[in-house]
C-alpha cells in the first residue's frame, strides 16, 4: 500500500503514425475491437452508427485520373492534452484525464448517454452504443477478460487500451518495479500494425519514438490550431498529405459514395 502511494513518474503517452507506411489494411481496427470487446457490426449499423475506436479513412488529393493520389489516415481519440474538449462538457464526470498518464478515459458505467461529448469532439472519435452489444452464439468465449462490454445507450472511445496499461502496471509491480518500462505497454493497434506505421510511447521520454517523431519537420497533428494539444502525431513526407491537418475545404460536388 505504501509503495502504491509513492509519487510515480508522470507519463504523457502519445502516438506517432507514419502515413507513408499505412496501407489501410484495417488490422488496427479489428485488433482494437478484439482487445476492447467491441461487438461485430449490428445488422442495422452503418459507417455512421458503427463503433470503431480507431477508424482508417481513405483521403485523396482531390485530383482526377492519373494525378489522383490517396493516403490512409487512421483516426482515433487524439488524447487532447490541453482544454480537452470532451472532458469539461460531461455533466457527470464520466470523462476524465488520468493525471498519471495523460490518457483521456471514458467511464461507460457512469455515462448518461447525453452525447454532448460527441458533439464536442472535433475528431469524431467518440461512439455511441446505438444497440446492445451482440456476439454470435459462442463468440462471447473470445471476449477479453480485462475489458467490460458496454451496454446500449452509453458513449465509448479509445483509451489507449487501458486494460493493457493496468496489466503492464501489475507486471511491473510483480517484478518489483514502480514504473512501466518503455515498450512494456503498447495498445493493440500499435502491436497489430503489420507495417509498424503506428508507434507508441511516453512523450516526456525524449528517446521514445513518438517524442522523436513529434520533433520531425514532416510531423503534424490534426486541427492543431484548435489549441487542444492532441497527442497523436502524424507523419508524411508528401506535402499534400500534410494538408489533411488543416480545416476542411469547401466541397467540389464529386460523386463518390466511399470514404
Amino acid at each position: 500500500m505504501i509503495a502504491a502511494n509513492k509519487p510515480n513518474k508522470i507519463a504523457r503517452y502519445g502516438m506517432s503514425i507514419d502515413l507513408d507506411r499505412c496501407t489501410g489494411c484495417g488490422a488496427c481496427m479489428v485488433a482494437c475491437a478484439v482487445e476492447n470487446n467491441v461487438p461485430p457490426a449490428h445488422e442495422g449499423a452503418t459507417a455512421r452508427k458503427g463503433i470503431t475506436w480507431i477508424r482508417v479513412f481513405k483521403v485523396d488529393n482531390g485530383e482526377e485520373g492519373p494525378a489522383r493520389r490517396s493516403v490512409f489516415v487512421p483516426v482515433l481519440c487524439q488524447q487532447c492534452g490541453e482544454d480537452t474538449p470532451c472532458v469539461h462538457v460531461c455533466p457527470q464526470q464520466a470523462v476524465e484525464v488520468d493525471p498519471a498518464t495523460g490518457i483521456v478515459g471514458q467511464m461507460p458505467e457512469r455515462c448518461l448517454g447525453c452525447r454532448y461529448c460527441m458533439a464536442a469532439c472535433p475528431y469524431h472519435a467518440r461512439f455511441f452504443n446505438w444497440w446492445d452489444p451482440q456476439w454470435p452464439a459462442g463468440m462471447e468465449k473470445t471476449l477479453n477478460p480485462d475489458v467490460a462490454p458496454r451496454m446500449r445507450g452509453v458513449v465509448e472511445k479509445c483509451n489507449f487500451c487501458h486494460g493493457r496499461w493496468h496489466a503492464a502496471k501489475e507486471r511491473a509491480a510483480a517484478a518489483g518495479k514502480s514504473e512501466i518500462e518503455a515498450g512494456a505497454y503498447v495498445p493493440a493497434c500499435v502491436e497489430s500494425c503489420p507495417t509498424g506505421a503506428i508507434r507508441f510511447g511516453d512523450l516526456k521520454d525524449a528517446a521514445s519514438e513518438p517524442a522523436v517523431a513529434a520533433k520531425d519537420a514532416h510531423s503534424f497533428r490534426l486541427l492543431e490550431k484548435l489549441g487542444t494539444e492532441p497527442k497523436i502525431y502524424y507523419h508524411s513526407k508528401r506535402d499534400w498529405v500534410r494538408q489533411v491537418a488543416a480545416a476542411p475545404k469547401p466541397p467540389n460536388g464529386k460523386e463518390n459514395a466511399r470514404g
Partner: protein
Amino acid sequence: MQRTRRDILLFMGGGAAGAMLTPAPWRLVTDAAIWSENWPGIPRPARGEITARYTNCALCPAGCAVRARCVAGQPVSLAGVAGNPLSQGALCAFGLTGHQLPYHPQRLKQGTPEEAAAAVRGAMAKCGAGESVAVLDLAPGRAASWTYRRAMAAVANGVYLAPPPPLGGAAVNLAKARTVLSLGAPLLDGWGTPGNVHAARANFRLIQAEPWESRTAALADEWLPIRPGSEAALALALKDPKTAPSAAQATGLTEKQILDLANELTANGPALVLSADDLPEALALNHALGAWGQTLVARPEVPVPDAWKKAAPERVVASVPDNSIRVLFIDESVPGSHIPWGAIEKKLVRDNPVVVAFAWTLEGYGRHAQFTLPTAVYPELTSDIPPAIDSPAATFRISVSLVAPPAGMADPSAFIAKAAGIDAGNALQERADAIHKSGRGTLFTYADGKSTPLKDIKPDAFWKSLNEGATWLGGAEEPLTRRRGDAEEIPGELPSEAPRLRVSASDTFPLLVAFTTPTPATLSSPLMSKLYQDSDLRMAPNTAALHPDTARASGITGASRAVLETQYGRCAIGVIPDESVPPGMLEVAAGPEILDICGAFTRAKVVAA
C-alpha cells in the same frame, strides 16, 4: 411509560433523519449506480489463467506465426510472433480475428458421413473406363495433400487436382529485388507474407501498373494508370521494345514512358515482375530480365517420406476431360485459391456424379455438393502449411489445434484414405520425421525466439517443438535439387482455370473484373464488419464499385443492388458508384457467390436487379 402512536412516529421520523447523517443511505445510492451498470443480457467475459500459446495461421498460404493470448486455454486475441524470420511479427486483419471463426454464425455443424461414404463406395464401384475418381485440393503441398495423392494413386482412375501453382511453382526472393514492377499484383495488400513484404519494402523501388489506384498503387513509388486489361501488352513491350507503339495505344501510356520503364528495369536490377493473375508474358519478361535465380528462385521441396513417393501427379482441373469425374472430393477445410464452380461442374459425369465437400461452412462448394461434411476450422484444425510464395527457403510449420473442434467433425484425409483403401497413418508426424532425417536447416521456436540447427535437435523434441509453435527453415546452403520452373522450363502458356480474355471489351461482357484484395475464399470473422459496415474502409463481400458512367451505361443508376453476370453464371451483388474506378472496370470485393462465377481475368456485365 405509556407509548403513544405519536411517540412511535416521532421515533421513526427522528431515526430517518438521523440515518441521513450516516453513510448507509448514501452508500446505497452509490451502489444502486453500480447495479445499474450491469444491464441484463450483456455477456461477461470469462476469467481464468492467462497463457500464451503459439501456432501458425492457416487462413492463407502465408502461414504467419501466431501468438495466442488464452484465458483458461481459450484464445481471446491473436498477435504476430516478433522475430519470426518470415512473417516478422505481422498479422493481417483476417488473421487477427481468426480465433473467432469457430463461432461463425454460418458454421456447418452437421453432416452425414456414413451416407456419404456409402454413396462414394457405390459410385466408385460404378466408375467405368474413361471416368475418374478425383480429389480437388485447394491448398496443395500439405501432408494431407500427399495423403490424397497416395490415395488417388491407389485407386484405379484416381486423379489429384489442385489450383495451378502461382509463378509456375517458383518462389520470390524479395530481399534481392531492387526494382519491382507489379502488373496489378496486390503486393502491399495481402500478397505473399505481409510481414516479409513490408520488411523488404524499403530496399526496392515499386512501380505499380494498374488501372485503378489500389492500396498498392497508393503507396507505390510510381503508379502507372494503364487501361483495364492492358497488362500483358505492357509486359510484352517491356520485353520487346518493338511493340512499344502498340502497347502505348493499348495501355494509354506514352511510348517514352514504356521505354523508360524498360530501361529502368534493366538498369536498376535485379528486377522482378509480378502480375495479378500469373500472366505468361510477365514470366517471360522476368526471364528476359534475368530474374531467374535472383529474384525468382526454384525453392527446394520440403522432404517427404520415401514411402509417399508413389503418388498421383498434381493436375489442374482444365486438364481433365469434360464429363469424366464420377466421384469428386473437394477439400476446402484449409482455405486456398478458388476455382469457379462452373469450371468444375462441366468435368463431372452427366449421370449422378457424387461430390463430397469437406468444409466448415456451407458458403463454399458445399452449396453444389451432394454431401458436405463439416470439418474443423482454424484454429481448431491441425495441419501443416506449405511454404509461402515469398519464401525462397523450404519451410515446414504446423497450424496447431488451439481449441478442441466440436464433436462430429470429419477428417478429410482419413475419409478419403479409407475410401481408397489406404492407411493415412499420422502423415504429419511422418513428414516431420522425414524432415528431421534430412538433418538440414534450422528450427525457429516461437516461445523463446531462438533458432537451433536441426542436427542439434532430437526427433521427439523436433515434433514437440513443431506442436508448440515453430518453423523449420531449410537452409539456403542446401543444394538446389528438383528444380522447377528453370529457364528452359518456362511454359509458354500456364495452365489456368479461366479463359484469358485480354482482347478489347466484348459486347456481351464489357467489364473487366478486378478483385480488391485480400479476400479469402472463405468466410471471415463477423468482426471484419468493422472494416466494411461500421466503416467504409473496404467493400463488403459480394460488392462491386464501378464508375458512375459505367453504372449509367449498365442502367443501374441510383440502385444499390444489381446482378453480376459472367460466362459461368450470375449472382446478386451490391454496387457502389465510385469515380476513382476507371470506366470499363468493376472493382469487386469477392465473396463466395462472386468467386463462384469469376476467375482470373473474368469479363462480366452488371444488369439491374
